[in-house]
């Protein structure tokens, strides 16, 4: 299903953030909006990674991966208790 959205974790290169953005979260938001009008950010990360997580279609994820400043777009993984 091409419209099915799943969660991706998007890693971004903070050093490549355009000067027009005052805060990384604005840059993350702009990057997300550039590939999807409907997707909302689940989290914007400040310390663990530079980037965010969001629900995207496979095509949106592929498109995002080609945007400048994007290091990786990784599908969400499920962990379990030990």
């Amino acid at each position, binding site marked *: 299903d091409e419209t099915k959205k799943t*969660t991706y*974790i998007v890693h971004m290169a903070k050093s490549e953030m355009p000067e027009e953005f005052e805060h990384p979260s604005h840059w993350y938001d702009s990057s997300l909006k550039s590939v999807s009008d409907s997707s909302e950010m689940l*989290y914007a990360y400040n*310390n*663990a990674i530079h980037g965010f*997580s969001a629900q995207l279609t496979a095509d949106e994820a592929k498109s995002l991966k080609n945007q400048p400043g994007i290091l990786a777009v990784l599908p969400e*993984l499920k962990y*379990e208790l030990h």
Partner: protein
Amino acid sequence: TTRTPEFLRLDKNAALFPASSAAGAVVIGVLDTGVWPESKSFADTGLGPVPSTWKGECESGTNFSSKLCNGKLIGARYFANGYEAALGPIDESKESKSPRDDDGHGTHTASTVGGSAVEKASMLGYAEGTARGMASFARIAAYKVCWLGGCFSSDILAAIDKAVEDNVNVLSMSLGGGMSDYNRDSVAIGAFAAMEKGILISCSAGNAGPSAFSLSNVAPWITTVGAGTLDRDFPAYVSLGNGQNYSGVSLFRGAPLPGSLLPFVHAANASNSSSGNLCMMGTLIPEKVKGKIVLCDRGVNPRVQKGENVKAAGGLGMVLANTAANGEELVADAHLLPASTVGQKSGDAIKKYLFSDPNPTVTIFFEGTKLGIQPSPVVAAFSSRGPNSITPGILKPDLIAPGVNVLAGWSGGVGPTGLADDTRRVEFNIISGTSMSCPHVSGLAALLKAAHPDWSPAAIRSALMTTAYSTYPNGQNLQDLATGKPSTPFDYGAGHVDPVAALDPGLVYDLTVNDYLDFLCALNYTPSEISSVARRSFTCDAKKKYSVTDLNYPSFAVSFDAVGGSNVIKHTRTLTNVGAPGTYKVSLSSDNPAVKISVEPATLSFTQTNEKKPFVVTFTAVSTMPSNTNVFGHLEWSDGKHVVGSPIGVSWT
């Protein structure tokens, strides 16, 4: 926990550990299923003000008010955005959209890591004693990331993100995923950021043992913890109609079985399923089970669920037999009906009787709690094993700690079995897993952090590893419950944690962020892969020769090529003096002459604190060995007072 403080010699050496004021400055973050704040383990009696560095919060939500936090439980947050995005809105009639622990696992790990002392704690009368966490004066912050549907990486990353911002000092994560490269593993990535802030990250090794290559959480900036037994048992004897008795274990409490022998049936002969021996739900035939004790094989479905299924079919009791996967490992459970778990050997003997006697009979005698069981510790069969499948050059797990039949705090929202039909409520529960061993090490790391605030996470881990023990007093290697034979560094890493010795390790193998960046270069990570892990632009120096063998790790994993390649591998290490001036001499041992090991220099003299001295270990394969051959050894530096030990694992691949 009611036994591990004695087992780890914490109680008798309490004076050596930091006072409550120093320990109270350490905050341990626990990523898990949340917390049951009403547990007595989170009472804050005697604790001073919350550390001024603390920036965390106590969040409100379903069944949880921010007022439930106190001087012990200083933070409680929950992260469900990823979970809800994947599986839809949380059904708040089934689980609390808040830090509230509806499962029990998070309360167990949090109280193990740093629970306050609670007198006369027990689980239905079993394992009675004073329960306390390893760092009983440390502060706890709970980060709920695991829900009924699992733990999602976007939520885990968000929790680590906050924990770093909140200023925790130690992070305990008893969870894991598959075996991903570090740049694709959210736990490894988040842990890197935490490590960089001076936070020690301790993770469970996984419960996929005894299979080789079954470890998770193997990034070298993570402390990876396997599980061992305590010297405590909960015997429940299986007495057969032929007069033979077999020892098993049980935490059953309830109406006893009738004194007389009862009819006994193998589940495979009372089932409508080809895998009837497993006592799966709906497979037992009530007419063949009613009024009898049923033998079920361990595996596939949860152990306590097998008992529930036997009970539902009208059975009076259960004998649960281990198979080859678990060997002689006896994990006790609070079954809903009289039941005993027996090892594989006993199980086989009992089955032989069942199949040979036309009218087999049996009963079970419950003996309560027994201490002083030897040998102990023994490596748990379930504890995940090396070699390290992601980076064979790093020996994992790092060490083992108590993880079998551990008593700790429990959620008031669920019974001790976790089954929906279990209406019993307990303040403490006894459960097993590397989930239980991980918070032991996290708590002990917090104690070391309080004693040595200036030590890096790597120095703390080094102290825990180089002072761990891998032999019993008689010199024999720690046993493996899966085989009954001596275990190896691929099972226990550096050995079993010894926190008293770890307080004064003499020397440590320290590591900085730059060392880990060099390590990523040695793995040929691209600049963007390094940036994903380490959040910075970093280009490996094309002129520099990077090698995993140069990472200053406190253990040695050596890989020779079975079909050629070099027969000489050198590892470089640097020791830092954290004790008094002294001269350390090296000693080496190996279980096979196929590898010659030498160290240069063989003596290291330290005249001041924090002085660093390098050395090189040369491993020479004297003869070519077949693929999958392993040789083990031990390297030790000693000044006569301290012993700084490292395990060696050599493999041919």
